[in-house]
């Protein structure tokens, strides 16, 4: 049997796989959508808390800052694959299964929360202290300072942070996929590695390259539009 794969044959193989590639893309999209949503909803406020409890800030509190910071570091120090395995009981409890993109989204979300919290904290630090102080002097409440001043002034940086998070977690989702989550990375491993269909591996990597470029481009554009500094 001829070992050499022609380009035409490779393309035929890939087009035969089109439904599976589409399915894998949907799974990756689902994992990312869940993970990023949880990161924004939980990690965002956590990052704001980290920032506001720093010394010299609105709610300076060494104890709270220390505990939250310690927890964030703890989760972030786990290699993702180990975090995933150790969260299997939690995943089963929440989703009822450990297979599929929704199950994979549990450890993804768990890892994304502290990651995004740190990014938010770093971004907020760039706001000049004087601007927050001006709002205090005008009689703004803490909620008004958070919504109108912090988030308003940091919006471009927050979009850039979200872009970084999205791209990192596209990569994490491939790891999650291999352990039963599905998605583009899983497809690449199953066909490209286990079945020696190198063309599938190459095509999936190229697909990821394109997705990353699009995300970064869109993130940069949006951040630039929102940034009036």
């Amino acid at each position: 049997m001829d070992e050499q794969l022609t380009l035409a044959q490779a393309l035929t193989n890939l087009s035969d796989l089109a439904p599976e590639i589409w399915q894998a893309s949907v799974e990756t999209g689902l994992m990312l959508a869940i993970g990023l949503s949880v990161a924004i909803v939980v990690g965002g406020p956590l990052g704001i808390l980290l920032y506001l409890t720093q010394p010299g800030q609105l709610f300076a509190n060494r104890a709270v800052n220390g505990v939250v910071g310690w927890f964030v570091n703890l989760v972030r120090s786990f290699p993702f694959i180990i975090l995933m395995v150790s969260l299997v009981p939690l995943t089963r409890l929440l989703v009822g299964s450990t297979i599929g993109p929704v199950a994979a989204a549990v450890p993804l979300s768990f890892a994304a929360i502290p990651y995004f919290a740190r990014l938010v904290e770093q971004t907020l630090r760039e706001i000049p202290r004087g601007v927050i102080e001006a709002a205090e002097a005008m009689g703004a409440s803490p909620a008004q300072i958070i919504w109108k001043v912090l988030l308003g002034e940091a919006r471009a940086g927050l979009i850039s942070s979200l872009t970084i998070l999205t791209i990192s977690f596209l990569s994490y989702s491939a790891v999650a996929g291999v352990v039963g989550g599905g998605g583009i990375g899983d497809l690449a491993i199953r066909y490209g590695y286990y079945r020696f269909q190198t063309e599938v591996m190459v095509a999936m990597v190229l697909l990821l390259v394109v997705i990353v470029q699009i995300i970064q481009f869109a993130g940069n554009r949006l951040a630039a539009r929102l940034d009036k500094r």
Partner: protein
Amino acid sequence: MIHLKNVHKRFRRPEGGWFDAVRDTTLHIKAGEIFGLIGFSGAGKSTLLRLINLLERPDHGSVNVDGRDLTGLSAAELRRARQNIGMVFQQFNLMANRTVAANIAFPLEIAGWSRADIDQRVAECLDIVGLADRAGHYPAQLSGGQKQRVGIARALAPRPHVILADEPTSALDPKTTQSILDCLQDINARFGVTVVIVTHEMHVIRSICHRAALLDAGEVVELLDVTDKQVAARSALAKSLLEAA
């Protein structure tokens, strides 16, 4: 109008120990006057100013503005009281992602004004500081003098009885300085707003102040009267500042 009674403020030094920024100071500022706080760096003038709206809380002593003792207020009451005390900063402290109009609207938004009232008041304030044609610009597109005019309009927007100005011209060139001082004087004359201004330049005192307190090492060493743009100085420190000007 503003009565500071035996206010004292100390800060912990980073290297340990304490630093008394304001020492047991009593000061009365009358309604409608432009009052200067002058002294060299570290004399405690900015701290004293920030005690008036409680950005710094005194270790002891009372702060009375408009007949209310601010030190006894709850957090929510203090926020309401602060809406009656505008503040202007050396570094302007404008929000970079808000337009000029939106920056001026900010104190009105947090005070709960209606959109229509806000729009009308913002337009008035833009006119007062002469920036009507810059409403849609962002701070980054403005010169230093224009930024400070936005800062003044923002402080003026909620119709405060008092405006605190912390070295409002120290980041500006001499010509722009004069136009900002004129702007403050104009607001004082037209609306009767009491203005307290911190400066290290005797020129600022002579130019617009009615009275001033000379500070040194956290204490008021002399009260200066200004008549016909002349300052009558008795202390050696005041004389040295006059010579420097």
